[in-house]
């Protein structure tokens, strides 16, 4: 078993399984930074997984397919923003409504588009390619891990960096964070909080859409019913555990990838019943959440001199 765990393949699996969660975690954190819990990530990912297949088969191009999917993701983010900000809908209930619509809507749309029930078996979609970068490939071990990863995995790593710079080094990032910290204070210095939250939710939707596209056009090469499988929810937990920062979220996503990869290896070696291993990521988050919040609470108490 140890041999399997220490192989570059194993680390590659971690990255592969972490990719969709990482995208969704970044999506959760930008929404959270603007002060909104985006629980609709699950539904947006599911919709995007389907639209990824439809658009890439329609345009015969993974790139165009991804672009269109990301636009749809942003659009769903905007719809969520419209209901939450304009119509004053409870953000959790609005998200639940979007998730429900996604569960039914994807099956219905797939049936209408191709006549397939639940699995897009008759659609010829185009998956995002795996790429190897010549120089990095030569680095021992690390090169083996990174080479041949999907282009979207690379993109997700890049997105961590871009999101970090965006949130902490640009004026718009500052606006987003200040609206999330204190809406009224931000308004008082002339920030249009509604506009800022709209932008944050649109970006959040677009990021989740990349995660969704990866599910059906990278991780797998077709759409199956309910394929987001709770990753949007995991992302909320991961983001929260990572303090809603892109870098923190990145490490927690890797933890999820690790648990998934471990589950794969242990399933083969049968040390434990696999149902127990499948529990590991959720149990890890649950404990992680408790520990993280507890330490935050203690820190606050210390600072306030209690």
């Amino acid at each position, binding site marked *: 078993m140890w041999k399997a765990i220490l192989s570059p393949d194993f680390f590659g699996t971690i990255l592969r399984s972490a990719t969709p969660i990482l995208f969704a975690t970044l999506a959760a954190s930008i929404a959270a930074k603007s002060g909104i*819990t985006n*629980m609709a990530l699950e539904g947006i990912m599911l919709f995007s997984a389907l639209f990824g297949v439809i658009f890439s088969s329609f345009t015969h191009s993974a790139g165009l397919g991804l672009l269109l999917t990301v636009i749809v993701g942003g659009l769903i983010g905007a719809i969520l923003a419209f*209901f939450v900000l*304009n*119509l*004053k*809908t*409870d953000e*959790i*209930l*609005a998200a*639940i*409504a*979007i*998730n*429900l*619509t996604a*569960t*039914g*809507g994807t*099956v*219905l749309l797939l*049936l*209408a588009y191709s006549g397939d*029930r639940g699995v897009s078996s008759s659609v010829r979609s185009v998956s995002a390619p795996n790429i190897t970068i010549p120089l990095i490939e030569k680095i021992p071990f690390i090169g083996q891990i990174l080479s041949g990863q999907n282009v979207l995995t690379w993109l997700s790593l890049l997105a961590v960096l871009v999101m970090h710079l965006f949130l902490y080094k640009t004026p718009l990032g500052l606006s987003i964070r200040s609206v999330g910290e204190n809406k009224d204070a931000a308004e008082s210095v002339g920030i249009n909080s509604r506009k800022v939250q709209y932008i944050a939710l649109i970006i959040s939707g677009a990021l989740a859409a990349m995660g969704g596209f990866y599910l059906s056009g990278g991780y797998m090469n077709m759409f199956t019913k309910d394929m987001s499988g*709770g990753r949007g*929810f*995991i992302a*909320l*937990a991961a983001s*929260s555990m990572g303090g809603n920062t892109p870098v923190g979220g990145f490490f927690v996503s890797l933890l999820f990838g690790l648990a998934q990869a471990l589950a794969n290896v242990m399933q083969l070696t049968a040390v434990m*019943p696999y*149902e*127990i291993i*499948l*529990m590991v990521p*959720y*149990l890890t*988050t*649950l404990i992680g*959440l*408790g*520990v*993280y*919040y*507890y330490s*935050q*609470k203690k820190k606050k108490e210390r600072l306030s001199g209690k």
Partner: protein
Amino acid sequence: MNNAKRFNALRTVLSVLIALAISFVIIFMVSEQPVEAIKYLLVGPLTSKRNMGNVIESMIPLIFTGTGVCIMFSANQINLSGEGAFHVGGLIASCVAINMSARVVSPIAALFCAGIVGAVFTAIPAVMKITTTADEMVSSLMINYLALYFGNYMLNNVIGDPKASAASYKLTEASKLPVLFDGTRVHFGIIIAIAVAILGYIFLYRTKIGYELRLTGENEEFAKYSGISIVKVILISQLLGGFVAGLGGGVEMLSPIYARFTWTSLLGYGWDAIIICTLSKKNPLYTPFAALFLAYLRTGASIMARRTDVTLEIVQITQGIIILLVVAEQFLSRYKHKLIAKEAKAALKEEEAA
């Protein structure tokens, strides 16, 4: 107040109608026999005794989880573990029902265990929130998956019948709930469900602790300063809500629908409960009506899916739209404003006259 209530009812009805209208448009777009499909959707459940029975029978789990979520949400705790509580409730009830065959005692024991396990289950996110301030919504989402995989583990390793695939040993006849009407599967659970809804109403709206709970839900700070123990309120509401959801899982398991425990995925009643809770405005008394509506819609949809080319999933879209419109506070707000202004003017006139 009267006008505001009437407005709420009107808005709910209007939301439902708009959602149905949108669904009809979708049916017209995707189906080659749209009129047939809509006919089956709307009147299908009334066409036979068995279909009507199906409506009643599918109301039962919805009333349970709906009431449970009403109690949990009334304290403003967005605890989404009702889904998992239902699952473990069904699991434990089947464990008991497989091993006990005493008449009357066996179902009561199974249901009691289901309730207790459900209560403990939903209390976990609540206890985490109290001790560590971890967000109950996120932790409850995670814990649902633990319930699912634990159920799968039990099914495959402990209660699984080696002769059946992905099913437990048979539940004993003595522990099943009796059928009420011949020719249907409507069972004793409907009586328990309605009793639970009424008790839930009495608890939330007619007792001191229920009042404290709702006050905490409305304004936690205010409740704190009025001397209400928030910790107590959170714990009681989550324990009770989980008990009801777990009980619902148990009742569903002991119903004539199942002979063995076969749940290998989450059934979604916890999410449905949120629709029920939204439609009934967090009042358990209205949950049977909301459940009737949803059950009717679903039974109609499954008849439609069997007879025509429209899939069952269209209902999920209808449900999504209904939630969005019902909870969109600004939807029809201008009309509401007018109504309130009219009422105020009338009150002023009366005052002048007096």
